[in-house]
């Protein structure tokens, strides 16, 4: 049975990847840019999967980490004429460092207080770091950075399909990394940390290091997404990385289910194409989409706390697995860690 399960899973992944490559080939350039945006949004959802799904921490400032990647690329490429790839590495490392710093404060906090802290971080970025006049050599002041598209081993990424494939490839690589984290030794450690910090520390796990690692990886993924977004749009401005973006993406990750890597794809597609479809088909304004996301979040948490994608996955698994190997509830429960300070 287990091998059946593996077969199903890999077939699903294979079909998903094939569709991901083939469908945009048939679409218009405009829809291809949206597809690239969806892959980038998927990366940010994935960064939340690392944090929430693996160590049970919550974050409402992922777009601030993305902003670090985006503005580093913007200022270095457009302002100082650096090579994109070098700027990308600097941006991702910078984001990871800030992530570890936030994680360092977060070590002492959990649940409720971590939520407050990350909202504080997001607003600090909105109103200070990225606000015009405070750090113009980074934020670009009142004008926005305009970095050009890079080329990838000699292949220019100017075409929309080429760029989409690049973004999709990065998302796949990141998913593979997170999948490795989940299933390998690291995954077992992180899950142990998520389920019971006390138990994990009694078997000799270094909680501090692992939590900081998770924050670092999560921030690095978000920073990577920001760096890609910077060259996808070709313009970097603070409005695209504000607090409302951060809470919307957190809402989407929770609605999809932060315990699953598949949520990243589903969340990214929903965020970008859902909004576009709503505007196109119903001529409603984009605020309606936010309204739907918020209402979806409330409805889902009251009635299906584990998340839509996780719920579907579990149903499929239940069909395939003999009853005694039912997926354990605890493994799937993502954002429900009871804050120790409040419990």
């Amino acid at each position, binding site marked *: 049975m287990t091998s059946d399960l593996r077969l199903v899973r890999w077939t699903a992944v294979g079909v998903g990847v094939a569709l991901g490559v083939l469908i945009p080939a048939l679409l218009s350039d405009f829809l291809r840019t949206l597809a690239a945006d969806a892959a980038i949004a998927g990366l940010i959802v994935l960064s939340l999967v690392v944090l929430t799904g693996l160590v049970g921490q919550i974050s409402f400032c992922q777009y601030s980490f993305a902003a670090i990647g985006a503005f580093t690329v913007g200022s270095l490429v457009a302002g100082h004429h650096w090579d994109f790839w070098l700027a990308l590495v600097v941006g991702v490392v910078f984001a990871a460092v800030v992530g570890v710093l936030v994680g360092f404060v977060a070590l*002492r906090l959990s649940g409720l207080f971590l939520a407050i802290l990350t909202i*504080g971080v997001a607003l600090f970025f909105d109103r200070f770091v990225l606000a015009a006049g405070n750090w113009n050599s980074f934020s670009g002041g009142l004008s926005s950075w305009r970095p050009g598209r890079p080329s990838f081993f000699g292949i220019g990424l100017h075409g929309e399909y080429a760029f989409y494939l690049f973004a999709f490839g990065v998302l796949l690589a990141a998913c593979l990394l997170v999948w490795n984290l989940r299933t390998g030794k690291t995954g077992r450690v992180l899950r142990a940390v998520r389920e019971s910090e006390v138990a994990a520390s009694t078997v000799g796990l270094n909680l501090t290091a692992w939590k900081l690692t998770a924050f670092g990886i999560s921030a690095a993924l978000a920073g990577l997404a920001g760096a890609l977004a910077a060259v996808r749009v070709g313009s970097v401005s603070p409005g695209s990385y504000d607090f409302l973006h951060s809470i919307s993406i957190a809402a989407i990750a929770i609605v999809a289910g932060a315990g699953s890597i598949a949520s990243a794809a589903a969340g990214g597609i929903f965020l970008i194409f859902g909004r576009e479809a709503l505007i196109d088909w119903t001529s409603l304004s984009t605020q309606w989409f936010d309204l739907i996301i918020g209402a979806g979040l409330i409805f889902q948490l*009251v009635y299906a706390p584990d998340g839509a994608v996780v719920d579907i996955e579990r149903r499929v698994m239940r069909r395939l697995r003999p009853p005694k190997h039912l997926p354990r509830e605890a493994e799937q429960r993502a954002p*429900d*860690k*009871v804050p120790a300070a409040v419990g």
Partner: protein
Amino acid sequence: MTIAAAGISLLPGLTVIGIVLGGIYALAAIGLVLIYRVSGVLNFAHGAVAMFSTFIAYQVSVQSGLPGWIGLLAAIAAGIAMGFVIERFTMRPLTGKPVLTKVVITIGWLIVLQAAAALIWKANAYHRAVKLVSKSGFRLTGTSVVVGYDQLTTVLVALGLALATAAVLKYTTLGASMRAVADDPEAARLWGISVNRVTAASWMVGSGMAAIAGVLITPLINFDTFSLTLVVIDAFVAALIGRLTSLPFAVLGAFILGLVQTYPTAFFNNSGMHEVATFALLLVALAVLFRPGARKLRVA
């Protein structure tokens, strides 16, 4: 030297501004603390409830031209209604579930109210604030500082509401029930207290206070869907200084925050110092008052 000297001469005026800001944050923090004490849920939608109620007042008083106090009443009614809906339909079904789930639901409400208000009243349009108190003021004796009556009202109402809430909690049956539910819902139930009703009451009263806060604040800050929603973070910092449970310390925290945000502007020619001060105080409050091994919170 000249900058420092100029800065110091500004201090009396900045003190007034800081105290008024503190009054604003105190108004917002009182309802937050009340809801947290009784239900254990930190209401991230508190600012959004205040914002939406204030827009109701705007609709009634500015758009339809009715007197300001009718707008205020409408806003309070709207706040109470929102508090009821949030508690009854999205908190009560989750009794016994992790607190964090409920907290994330309040973030869902923040998104919903924010988007709904932006749809109804347009996010970036200019909105005229509801006028309750005259903007004219009096000069403080011995200084050149003018205190507006609207500013004075904000501070007085904040202090009055804080005292009233403390009195209700201490001396009335409802207050005693609220404290009982805050300490131990199970024991409270055994004593015949309707935990659901008391929790609903705290959400309704707390949200009604958010409405009062919103209407009083709007003449003093930007009146748009976003600014008012985000006052909640300042209220958090104030409430954190009161360990989320103490009303007097939350009010004190609010005034400290107001002054800490205002004083640096005397010495730094940079509007961003305001945010740095908020963030620094948030970090200090989290790190010192909620460090592992700190005195336990009394609320479940």
